[in-house]
């Protein structure tokens, strides 16, 4: 049996995830059951080729921002530690520890960097995401 490890990778390898086209369909999409996201952690959703980090706070409030960390160039924000700075919820990038505000997408250490935020909702135990808004 020949096992191709990187087939998925290779088909789109020439493009950076940030330059993915975003389709204009109306789009709330069901992503996963809430239980798939452990409290106070994040997961990454793949939607139309775009990577979106979804965070579940301790009180089940949800936030969604880009998964791409512009400071390291890696797609990793969903794996960062979440918490707050001065009461403002943030995630810390696991690579160089920049903080991004979950409500606004703003980078705390670098005013010039701004991530997209996305509407995210909890409906009947399912997490729904909209990336066209």
């Amino acid at each position, binding site marked *: 049996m020949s096992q191709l490890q990187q087939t998925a990778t290779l088909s789109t390898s020439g493009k950076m995830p940030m330059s993915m086209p975003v389709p204009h369909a109306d789009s709330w999409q069901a992503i996963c059951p809430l239980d*798939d996201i*452990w409290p106070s952690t994040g997961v990454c959703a793949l939607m139309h080729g775009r990577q979106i980090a979804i965070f579940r706070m301790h009180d089940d409030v949800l936030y969604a921002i880009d998964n791409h960390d512009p400071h390291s160039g890696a797609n990793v924000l969903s*794996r960062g530690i979440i*918490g707050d700075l001065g009461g403002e919820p943030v995630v810390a990038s696991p690579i160089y520890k920049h903080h991004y505000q979950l409500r606004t997408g703003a980078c705390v250490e670098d005013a010039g960097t701004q991530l997209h935020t996305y509407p995210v909702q909890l409906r009947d135990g399912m997490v729904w995401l909209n990336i066209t808004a």
Partner: protein
Amino acid sequence: MDANTHIVVVGNGMVGHYFVQELVKRHPDLAAANLQITVLGEEPRPAYDRVHLSSFFSGSTAEDLSLVEPGFYDRPGLELRLNARVGMIDRRQHLVILADGDALHYDKLVLATGSVPFVPGVAGRDRENCFVYRTIEDLEAMTAAGTKAKSGVVVGGGLLGLECAKALRDMGLETHVVEFAPRLMAMQVDEAGGQVLRSKIEELGVHVHTSRNTTAITDGATARHRMVFFDETWLETDMIVFSAGIRPRDELARESGLAIGARGGIAIDNSCRSSDHDIYAIGECASWNDEMFGLVAPGYDMARVTCAHLFGDTTNTFQGADMSTKLKLMGVDVASVGDAHGKTHGSRSYQYLDEVRKVYKKIVVSEDGKQLLGAVLIGNADEYGTLQQMTVNAMPLPENPEFLILPSSDGKEKSGLGADALPESAVLCSCNNVTKGSIGAAVAAGSCTIAEIKACTKAGTACGGCVPLVTQVMKAEMLKHGMAVNNHLCEHFPYSRQELYHLVRVEQIKSFDELLSKHGKGLGCDICKPTAASILASCWNDFILKKGLASLQDSNDYFLGNIQKDGSYSVVPRMPGGEVTPDGLIAIGQIAKKYGLYTKVTGGARVDMFGARVEQLPNIWEELIAAGFESGHAYGKSLRTVKSCVGSTWCRYGVDDSVGLAVQLENRYKGLRAPHKIKFGVSGCTRECAEAQGKDVGVIATENGWNLYVCGNGGMKPRHAELLASDLSKEDLLRMIDRFLMFYIRTADRLQRTSTWRDNLEGGLDYLKNVVIHDSLGLGAELEAQMQHVVDNYQDEWKTAVTDPEVRKRFRSFVNSPEGDNNIVFVQEREQMRPATPAEKQQSKIIQILALVD
């Protein structure tokens, strides 16, 4: 000064070098100031720290001890000649004549020739294996002899003699101190103090013989030498070190007709000039008012005065010195302040003696009871800073002076002398002449740890006696600047890591939520969460990816792998002691090939596989576990590797089985989480192929057991490990390591390696020895039990992770898709893959890295 003044300095010891530093401080561009400086030193190396000479025995090297910054003597206008002994001064012609015949003209001459150890005129003193204790060469010779000796005698029970006795004892010799006077440290300590000191030192296994006058040294019957005493009793020993005081090196001055002090030494005035006004003398070779000073601080003072005087500044004069000293001799505090013997007319004293704890304290007060004149402290010198400052600054005594030395009845720490009561001009560090004012300035400029204060003011970097007081002043100054002495972990917890550790332990707290709701606020952050995770793991050692704990883990712990720049992970299986079977290697090779991973042998002597995506990790580990591997914790702030050399099993020089011990140690401490990563090394003999002295914990085999070194570091700021204990049995070794590690875990700051922890530890190595070896805090059993708990609760976290479906589910790139991250792409290099650069990704030059066909 005139055009091209030639200043010649004889002696490149501590004081001579300090003098040159002062000159350079004054005239950074010597040539522009028309100065030509020549320094002549008889020793083969530039100035080094004689005060810390003994640390040579616990691992410091000649380079560590050097006082000379690289390149210092290379500047224009400055020349240092080593191996250059001056044999004569021709004052008439202003010449110094070197032993090799070279002559050198001087305009001004500075003699900083120090002193030599005094060796009593005993017959047989020239025999082999008789030493003195003054230079690095002396110590090298002692070390060489020590390896072949079983016993050693120090002649002289003064400060240096006891320090030397400690060195002999640390070499594992049966150690004796032979003192001519009826008590130890007769210079500094009174009779009652001498008694207490003696029993303390005997307790440590050193034999003390007082009132013994050696008359001859002859061949021994059971050892190399026999020392015969005045009363015809004798003592046999393999080596002898004379440490019976020092004599100033004033021979150059004598021969050239300079005035000599009544008890020897080059007579100087308040400006440090000798009887010839073109010649100055500073340091231990000088005699001021017929007094000589065997400490470095007065020498530095003389150097400053001389430097000022040479350039016409006559306001600065030498006024004698405070000879207060505080030392820790073999872990015993010994301090004397001012008029310790109560020689001042009409003085009276208060004394406190505790024969159980072996503590003796005495203060000497003036006739009118208003001023403190001196003090002696043995066994516990906590009050040293307070008493010394009160004496030196003539501060008013409290109404009941006895309370200055009585233990407080409620067992609480005494507040001591409020730092605020000290005048700005108070010299806190006499070795380096650092005042309270300059500590204040350093704090104002942003220093707020004792390590920073040491670096920028030099306070506390010589004898170290002033560190507690300097710390106290630093904290007071920080408060003044509104810098709230804040060791709070972060905005969510108003506690230091050490305090949080205590709360977790004492209140048996098992989760972050509980800790936060009881003692913190907000949601937490990437500082306090990993810290809490580490503390919880150190205390209870639960599986770190349990629900509730997983969200606290730092990047690498979060997926039990080291995250790489592109978001992929590395995989490092444990190879205890660096030992691995051929089958193990084959399995690793096959797995790496199958998953297309880059392989490399690490600096920690094991194999690292790079480039795994999150979703591949559980499968890779499943296969590794099946092949008998466990997590290597390369990702954790935890035990990393125990590096070993091949040891006595194969090596022709090995004296013990270093691999066997390394494997045992690695298996004992694997999975132990700590404030930072911990590395061990075990070498089978002193050739040290495992570089154990560069590790947090280093073990070296000796003929009689194992030597334990601690707090070494490679990395950004290499630090030599220090010898904690020698010739330990394996059981004792494990006990000491248990205690050491748990004490570190308990008290260190977040992300503080053992080396920085040690550098910030008040009381230093001696304190650490007391706690770990002598169990001075009574914590030994508790620390051992806590370690045993961690050991008993070890689990291979990768095994737990792959066998728990809930946990395993977390290992995927996307919650809603089985795909992998398309940003992780590789190209080929040197027959393996590596992450593509951003440019390569744009150019689609990606090379398929593919998998094993089976």
